[in-house]
């Protein structure tokens, strides 16, 4: 190696160092908001975590204690009903987009799904309002779940399509060559092969809609009571955060922070469980 080469390599090595340091610094900058949000939310919220939060209704102004149990249960059922409708339909649409992608209809469906996922959630709330709240005549959990399902559907469909497209075509051919009809190959072989990816996508989508606020303002609204029926308004964590955080009562502000930290924990836990579940499956291969 002659000296000139050596000099170039030192310069290059320095440049390399510099770029790596720059990237690390930028990655840290990106982490700052996350850490800040987590720290802030938990610092404000954790002190107010207790059993009452999950089991009691909010107390009237002036009384201390009380909880947001109705909002926890309300959010749970809002998301559950949305999932029962939105997830299967989303998965079926995803299957259609991936396995029948050559048909002209698939092109139209794909474009519509993409447009739908770009529509702001508040607009979908207004849509659910006019489609369900207006005909029924009052706010209801059903309308809220419907709005959430419409938000969920394109996310689940897109994820399913992408995960299915990662399954190599020779897997499908192997199924067909065994004399298995195409629809069974899709549902019983390709979907099974993709199940961990789809589960992850669905769980993340559910965690996301659990935090949706705007569409619920037009639909499920809120309630002081435990949810009893799909046809009544229902409390939910995001809407309670929205109204209690701005209320001029300290007790309610505390509940809002506790609710915020519960919601963040939900998202974090979902993320971590999914990461762990998909990793352990990957390793067992």
């Amino acid at each position, binding site marked *: 190696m002659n000296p000139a080469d050596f000099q170039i390599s030192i310069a290059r090595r320095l440049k390399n160092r510099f770029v790596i340091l720059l990237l690390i610094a930028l990655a840290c900058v990106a982490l700052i908001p996350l850490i800040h949000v987590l720290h802030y939310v938990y610092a404000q919220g954790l002190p107010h975590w207790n059993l009452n939060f999950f089991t009691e209704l909010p107390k009237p102004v002036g009384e201390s204690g009380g909880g947001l149990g109705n909002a926890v249960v309300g959010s749970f059922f809002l998301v559950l009903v949305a999932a029962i409708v939105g997830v299967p339909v989303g998965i079926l649409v995803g299957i259609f987009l991936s396995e029948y992608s050559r048909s002209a209809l698939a092109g139209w469906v794909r474009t519509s799904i993409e447009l739908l996922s770009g529509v702001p959630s508040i607009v979908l709330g207004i849509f659910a309002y006019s489609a369900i709240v207006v005909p029924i005549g009052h706010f209801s959990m059903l309308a809220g779940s419907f709005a959430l399902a419409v938000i969920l559907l394109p996310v689940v469909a897109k994820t399913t399509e992408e995960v299915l497209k990662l399954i190599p075509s020779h897997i499908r*051919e192997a*199924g*067909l060559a*065994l004399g*298995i009809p195409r629809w069974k*190959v899709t549902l019983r072989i390709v979907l*099974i092969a993709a199940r961990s990816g789809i589960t992850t996508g669905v769980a993340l989508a559910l965690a996301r809609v659990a935090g949706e606020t705007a569409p619920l303002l037009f639909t499920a609204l809120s309630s002081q009571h435990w949810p009893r029926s799909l046809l009544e308004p229902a409390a939910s964590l995001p809407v309670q955060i929205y109204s209690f955080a701005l209320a001029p009562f300290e007790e309610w502000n505390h509940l809002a922070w506790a609710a915020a930290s519960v919601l963040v924990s939900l998202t974090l836990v979902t993320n971590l469980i999914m990461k762990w579940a998909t990793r352990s499956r990957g390793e067992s291969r």
Partner: protein
Amino acid sequence: MKPIVEAKNLNAYFENFHAVKNVSLAVPEKSLVALIGPSGCGKSTFLRCLNRMHEEIPKARVEGEVLLGGSSIYDRKLDPVAVRRSIGMVFQKPNPFPGMSIFENVVVGLKLTGSRDRMDQVAEEALKGAALWEEVKDKLKKPGTSLSGGQQQRLCIARALAMKPPVLLMDEPTSALDPISTAKVEELMISLKKSVTLIVVTHNMQQAARVSDRTAFFLMGELVEYDESSTLFTVPKDAKTEQYITGRFG
């Protein structure tokens, strides 16, 4: 010997491209026929006409006739899906179904085509037939994808054998395997032909010479020569065959 598979004036097209040109070839029962020829000469396409997989490709079509045990598999009244159950296929890349255990991989064909009886017994027989039973009998619940490449390929053979097909098609079944796994699969092919008719595409002429009874040499979509392997590899009749087997092209 009476042929079990017989292609008659078979032509295969991809849209406008004529990939298999007027091939006629008869495969004797319980023998091993090797298909050789340079890359792109239509071996895979021909093979996929024999179990009606070619028509799965959009705009692909087949003309001519394929007889299985004397009756046409392209009969209009037949469902191609049902036809495939009596002709197994093994692919170049081992492709066990992800997310399924070893056992599930073997029986999935039976399960999804509606014959669920005696699955344990069928799985054991198929795995024994594929010379894999001893290696996996204690871990049938492990994922099929956890096996080594060579074991995965034998699992795919077991998966095909579980359907008890009289004919098994193999498309370069060893070209993704290491030499030791390749030797095992070759041994397996030789023992399988006692019970099953094998049609094997290979780009490896030594392999064809080692395992096959008859060899078909394809070139640019045409069947150039088809003969006993011992004859074709020693005294080929066609000059092109001779050039190919002596390594002058391909």
